[in-house]
């Protein structure tokens, strides 16, 4: 056997680690791996920028039209960018056998999955949300509307990662996995899209957006509780 990876040495450690430590190690490992392959993160971000840029080119440069479309366009682009990055979520771990080690590790798989997903959100959701003001300005959104946009993206993108991980786990090693993943996951993303972009539109129309934000928060809480469980079941199905 080759040199044990960081994860295996963790498993061989005689002292059993706490759940939070396992979560943290998984998070740090994924962030470290991503920092060694930085282009993957930037690819997602550039996809996001290019996808938003296509709309003014396709629809025409009328600022009034772009302003009404902006929340939807940015949200759809963020959703697609986050979905494209999902196909690599478990793929390399699946290929090199790390995933099997995760499945047989003496920690709940859902906790490890949650750590991976938190890393995924830091690497995709947070940069997307931080980049969105720039794109919002390009499409003529007001400063206040941009603030709402960033808040909804920060609340909504973790839900996308969480729900999407179920699809990513189910399509592991399946032929045509990427396209199939979008078919499985996009219908489930729709409620987040509706309330995320709806909040920005409602704000621009002068309507109270507490309801939208509460619903996004509710989606987040429900998916934090259930999505890692469903994903770990899916991973066990795919690995066995």
């Amino acid at each position, binding site marked *: 056997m080759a040199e044990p990876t960081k994860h295996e040495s963790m498993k061989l450690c005689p002292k059993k680690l706490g759940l939070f430590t396992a979560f943290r190690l998984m998070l740090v490992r994924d962030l470290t791996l991503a920092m060694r392959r930085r282009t993957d993160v930037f690819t997602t971000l550039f996809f996001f920028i290019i996808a938003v840029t296509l709309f003014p080119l396709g629809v025409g440069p009328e600022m009034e039209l772009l302003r009404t479309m902006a929340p939807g366009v940015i949200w759809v682009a963020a959703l697609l960018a986050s979905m494209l990055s999902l196909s690599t979520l478990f793929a390399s771990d699946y290929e090199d056998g790390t995933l099997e080690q995760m499945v047989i590790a003496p920690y709940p798989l859902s906790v490890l999955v949650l750590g991976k997903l938190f890393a995924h959100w830091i690497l995709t959701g947070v940069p997307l949300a931080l980049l969105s003001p720039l794109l919002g300005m390009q499409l003529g959104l007001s400063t206040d509307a941009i603030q709402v946009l960033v808040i909804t993206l920060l609340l909504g993108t973790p839900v996308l990662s969480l729900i999407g991980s*179920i*699809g990513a786990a*189910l*399509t592991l090693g*399946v*032929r*045509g996995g990427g396209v*199939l993943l979008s*078919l*499985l996951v*996009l*219908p*489930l993303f*729709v*409620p987040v899209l509706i309330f995320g972009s709806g909040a920005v539109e409602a704000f621009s129309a002068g309507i109270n957006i507490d309801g939208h934000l509460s619903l996004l928060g509710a989606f987040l809480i429900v998916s934090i509780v259930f999505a890692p469980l*469903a994903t770990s*079941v*899916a991973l066990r*199905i*795919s690995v*066995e």
Partner: protein
Amino acid sequence: MANSRFWLYFSSPKTFYPFAGKLVPWCAGVAVVLTVIGLYLGLLVTPPDYRMGNSYRIIYIHVPAVWMSMLIYMVMAGWAAVGLIWNVKLAEMMAGALAPTGAMFTFIGLWTGALWGQPTWGTYWVWDARLTTYLLLLFLYMGFIALRSAIDDPRRASKASALLAIVGAINVPIIYFSVKWWNTLHQPFTVAPGQESKIDPTMLWTMLIMVFAFWAYAIAVALLRIRSEILEREKNASWVAELLDSSQDTSSEDNIAQEKSAQGDRA
């Protein structure tokens, strides 16, 4: 105890196969008879609507199809859960056998709804809450079928798609209550359990007859599909080999008989 043994008896593919074969003609017959009665009542007997005229008659297809599509999804997710939790092979096959029928009913629901919307609302399609969530149901069915057929190993395929069906089941209550939660173009419930119906009793009866016709059709088709899947999955089992041998014998006898009669005709 006897009850549980009864269910276990039918959960074996070997005993279910002939049982399903006996049920199929009955269900198909009921479906045909009820469809004929329902269409006769719906198209010729029930009075025209005082506002919509005759165009409303499509609800005799539309409403039962939509009900069936949502119900089939829930039943499918239920079987998927049974298959995933207790590892029952037949339940997994049942979930897979129901999906194409459910997708077809969803498509019929969308299609008839569009045809009804044109004369009534003046447009084939609106992005209203019920229509949009219902379109998502079609996508969920498509995702289920696509995932199932993309994975080659049948056990993994049925388990993975079962999990997807369970996750997607969240959408069905949202569709059902969308007309209540959001005040949109699609009309709210006219018929619902626990409240007095707002339509003419003959219309209600016609609709219920069509619902039962669609039920019988769905059961018949699902059983047919499950029978072929049992044969495919159990092709290495001895009882399937015996069954196929015996059916080949009879079919070859039939062929001989046909040839004889053909010769007789020529003579």
